[in-house]
């Protein structure tokens, strides 16, 4: 009910030290632009399975993930979902509002517990008008996100499930920042648009090769390089585009390349 008025004083982020921000877009902003947006940011927890934007509904908030990642899904009218992209601390969910969208085409859903900074759309648009650096960075992010989606579409059509699973785990690993992922096989099956039983087979092969360990719904990446070798080219293609657009100039992204613990 307070959405339209400024958030309560104790939640205002203006006192927040920009150096403690993990989200790379927020972290990369020049100080004056950061203070502009920080005045509207509210830090929230993300719950596993929480839906942030629903297909066809008005986008009311934009999210800058700090911890964990968000899955972007294309949903067909019979309810059949297919993941088209991931958003983690490198990005923004709900960014299509800067393209003039008011409703969400896709569904965005938290795949892990985590945290994000949230800002109401009206305030976000106002800030973007006054922050040319942020606007530029967001458009670049839109570009790399679109590249990710296009690559995913091509990958789904042409690559084998084992390669796709490896690619997906790498992308999830990059965005979550921890080697251990809490993910059920059911969930992965939905993300990849396949049956659970086929995910079991593919995950079993990666486990046998000593690349991942899968126990009680937790996947631990044991051999990151092995996982990169098991993935199709699509992982690298998308990672290269992120570096090209968001990471080449260290002034653009302070944190530099994607974090790899």
């Amino acid at each position, binding site marked *: 009910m307070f959405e339209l008025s400024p958030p309560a004083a104790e939640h205002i982020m203006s006192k927040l030290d920009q150096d403690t921000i993990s989200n790379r877009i927020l972290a990369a902003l020049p100080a004056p632009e950061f203070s502009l947006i920080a005045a509207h940011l509210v830090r929230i927890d993300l719950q596993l399975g929480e839906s942030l934007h629903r297909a066809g509904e008005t986008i009311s908030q934009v999210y800058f993930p700090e911890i964990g990642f968000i899955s972007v899904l*294309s*949903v*067909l*009218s019979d309810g*059949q*979902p*297919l993941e*088209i992209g991931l958003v983690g601390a490198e990005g923004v969910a709900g960014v*299509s509002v*800067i*393209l*003039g*969208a008011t409703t969400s*085409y*896709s569904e965005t859903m938290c795949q892990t517990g985590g945290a994000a900074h949230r800002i109401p759309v009206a305030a976000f648009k106002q800030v973007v008008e006054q922050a040319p650096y942020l606007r*530029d960075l967001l*458009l*670049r992010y*839109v*570009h790399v996100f*679109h*590249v990710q*989606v*296009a*690559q*995913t*579409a*091509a990958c*789904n*059509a*042409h690559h084998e499930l084992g390669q796709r699973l490896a690619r997906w785990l790498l992308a999830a690993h990059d965005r979550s920042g921890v080697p251990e992922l809490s993910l059920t096989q059911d969930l992965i099956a939905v993300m990849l*648009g396949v049956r659970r039983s086929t995910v079991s087979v593919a995950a079993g092969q990666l486990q046998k090769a000593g690349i991942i360990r899968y126990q009680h719904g937790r996947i631990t990446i044991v051999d990151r390089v092995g996982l990169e070798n098991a993935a199709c*080219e699509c992982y690298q293609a998308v990672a290269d*585009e992120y570096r*090209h*657009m968001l990471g080449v100039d260290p002034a653009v992204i302070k944190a530099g390349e994607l974090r790899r613990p």
Partner: protein
Amino acid sequence: MARNSKAIDPPANRLLGLLAPRDYASLRSHLEPVPLEYRKSLYQADKKIEFVYFIESGVGSLVNTMVNGQAAEVGTIGNEGLVGVPLVLGDERAPTSVYIQVPGAGLRMRAAHFKAELKRSPAMQAVMLRYVHALFNQVAQSAACNHFHALEQRCCRWLLMTRDRMQSDEFLLTQEFLAMMLGVQRPGVSIAAGGLQRAGLITYKRGHVTILDGRGLEQRSCECYQVSKKEFDRLLGD
């Protein structure tokens, strides 16, 4: 098919039609008509974009080429769009290649002029960003459609989309392109197109498509045709 377009009002390209008269007039001085022949490359992946194109008729295809040479179609652009989206988002280099798959005609201008025009007019930039969004939605819808829907449904969808862009029930469409759009081998296309011919919905001879029964095609198409069409119509303000 290579109608000699001279960028006279009203623009055949729907995106140009959305621009304020002043913005359109300003763009026109840079636009030159070009024929869009089958297989013409408008730009190449990883290369600098030299020209942007506003397609007036025909269809361009965004293609991701895999390391093994396999080409995957990720989206199409017709008279509703712009070939040059990366420039709107701040990249001068193309992430995917764009080839003409259904021949037609269009207008082109130098990338540098286009960027200067965008910078000059926030209103023009807003129109282009709306298109970026619509194109993105098309790519996202196709991703799910290609994955879940039956070949014949998808084939109907692409035929209808091409008809809308050509504004004609007759057009040229090679089996090779249809196969790439549908993500199948050519024999798969023959089977799907054969079924539609036998049902009296189309004729398809030597790459020449004639749609005999558009309503019948719509009934056999998946929802994705209507979803994408509505989305473009809404975003492009029809």
